[in-house]
């Protein structure tokens, strides 16, 4: 069985991001970039399925500039067998990404597409769902457990107040939640091996996808600085302040 794992290059989660002076977005110049953490979980899940003998080939794919090759190399160091860069300089939005991925799905015919539930930059949580809708595949989102059984896959989903288990017919789209697994580290021998694995590049234009943005960012602002708190002497005072000053109860 073949698995497609779409991944995204984002600002490293340890970087304290700064808003650009003109409020047009977040400063990306000279900022450390990394694979989106949820995507790492997606790669890890695919690798575990391969180790269990369920999966035979893992293909990582990403959309972005040449620089995104770094994250594909990382995916291959973690265990993906080959990868595809859909090259574009445009800032692709979820719908365009889903359409581009659909083109790759049609070409590669994977039985499973495993991807992060969201990227930590845009926090959109849309690509997986849109891809499922566009391709007609079933979707199991926010997965905390994935069990493949023949031509079906059981996905346990984290929902408000508990877990929901859905059964999907393959091929299917799965988006990964935080607790699905704990990703491994890329070891030196695997980093070396990854250098020899194939990395193909296709131009986004060649896929015939309309990359024109559907939404426009008006303004990006840093969260307001938190003002200092106060100490209250008693529960009565706290309730009174919540009622009369904060007016939240």
């Amino acid at each position, binding site marked *: 069985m073949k698995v497609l794992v779409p991944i995204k290059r984002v600002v490293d989660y340890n970087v304290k991001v700064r808003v650009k002076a003109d409020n047009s977005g977040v400063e990306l110049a000279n900022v450390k970039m990394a694979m989106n953490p949820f995507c790492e979980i997606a790669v890890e899940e695919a690798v575990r399925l391969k180790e269990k003998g369920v999966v035979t080939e893992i293909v990582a794919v990403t959309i972005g500039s040449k620089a995104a090759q770094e994250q594909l190399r*990382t995916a291959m160091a973690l265990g993906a067998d080959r990868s595809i860069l859909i090259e574009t300089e445009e800032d692709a939005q979820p719908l365009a990404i889903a359409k581009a991925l659909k083109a790759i799905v049609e070409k590669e015919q994977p039985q499973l597409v495993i991807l992060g539930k969201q990227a930590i930059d845009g926090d959109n949580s849309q690509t997986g769902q849109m891809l499922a809708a566009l391709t007609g595949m079933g979707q199991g989102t926010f997965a905390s457990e994935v069990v493949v059984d023949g031509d079906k896959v059981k996905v346990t989903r984290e929902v408000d107040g508990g877990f929901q288990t859905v059964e999907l017919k393959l091929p299917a789209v799965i988006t990964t939640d935080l607790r699905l697994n704990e990703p491994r580290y*890329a070891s030196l021998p*695997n980093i070396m091996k990854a250098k020899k694995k194939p990395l193909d590049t296709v131009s986004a234009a060649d896929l015939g996808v309309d990359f024109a943005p559907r939404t426009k960012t008006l303004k990006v602002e840093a969260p307001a600085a938190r003002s200092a708190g106060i100490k209250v002497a008693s529960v009565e005072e706290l309730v009174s302040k919540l009622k009369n000053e904060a007016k939240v109860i």
Partner: protein
Amino acid sequence: MSTTLDYFNDTHQMLRDSVRRFVERDILPHIDDWEEAGSFPRELYKKAAEAGISGIGYPEQYGGSGEDVFMKIVASEELMRSTSGGLVASLGSVDIGLPPVVKWGSEELKARVVPQVLSGDKIACLAITEPGGGSDVANLRTRAVKDGDHYIVNGSKTFITSGVRADYYTVAVRTGEPGFGGVSLLLIEKGMPGFTVGRTLKKTGWWASDTAELFFEDCRVPATNLIGPENGGFFCIMTNFQAERLMLCVMANMTSQIALEECLRYVKEREAFGRRLAQFQVTRHKLAEMATQLEASREFTYRVAAKMAAGQNCIKEVSMAKNFATTVSDRVTYDAVQIFGGSGFMRGTVVERLYRDNRILAIGGGTYEIMNEVIAKQMGL
């Protein structure tokens, strides 16, 4: 980091990212507790092995990932970001205890010992220093007398990093005449009759590391555990020191680097007399000097590493680099605490730990004074 591009390629960079992740996820959340507890879980050796860190610098046939000096440097630099010299020294005890086995041990010994250590199941360490003296290796007193197919070992060792928890001890013993020509290396194993480990020693720094005294009383060690030729141990010890000293250079430079980074962050936040510390010329110039010294030291270390990687004899240069790096880290950690003021004296501040952990770097692996003796000798004095 742009200044180091000559020595590191994109594979080094990927490894750096990977080890940094390991430190961020598996070490940093716990390091303050481990420091206070004076130890870290033994399973970290296993985790480091699984993350592919332990095998760096060792031959592939024994479970390593090949010998590349700069890969080792990358891994050590990133492990130092744990901010705990003790943790790095404990994990690193393997890198001073195991290489003699890899280089000079018998095939049987290598096949039995090395894979188990590189997989994180067993811990290796090096035992040279004795209660009677550390620097004077040629005159060590622990005796090993041949008795059939065994050695009978009597004596003691002290200040042994990982001494409490180790399974394999690469021990310098006297097998022959007085002086350097009578020294050998023996692999002594935990549980061998007559071998006991003393108390865990309490130290100024390196708290997360277990340091111990070792006692040998008629300890019977199979002769097959001899590492290298009998009475040829002095050469092995001195060769092994080169790699250890290079790693101590890296530790000293990273100590300076982290201290500097901590200061740069702090001076932008902390205010005094209505201004940020970063706006005082006295602070700015202090930081500029710290950065300059560190830059020179790091470049020197990398240069020596490059020469060592090319197979050149660098006994003099690595000794110089160690003394230079530790002089810089002495200065930088002192200044860092000064910049932090009272909080720099408080436990829980990174610079406070760096200041304590730094002190050993000009002592261990050859003291500052011994380094100067080595350098002087190499200059024909």
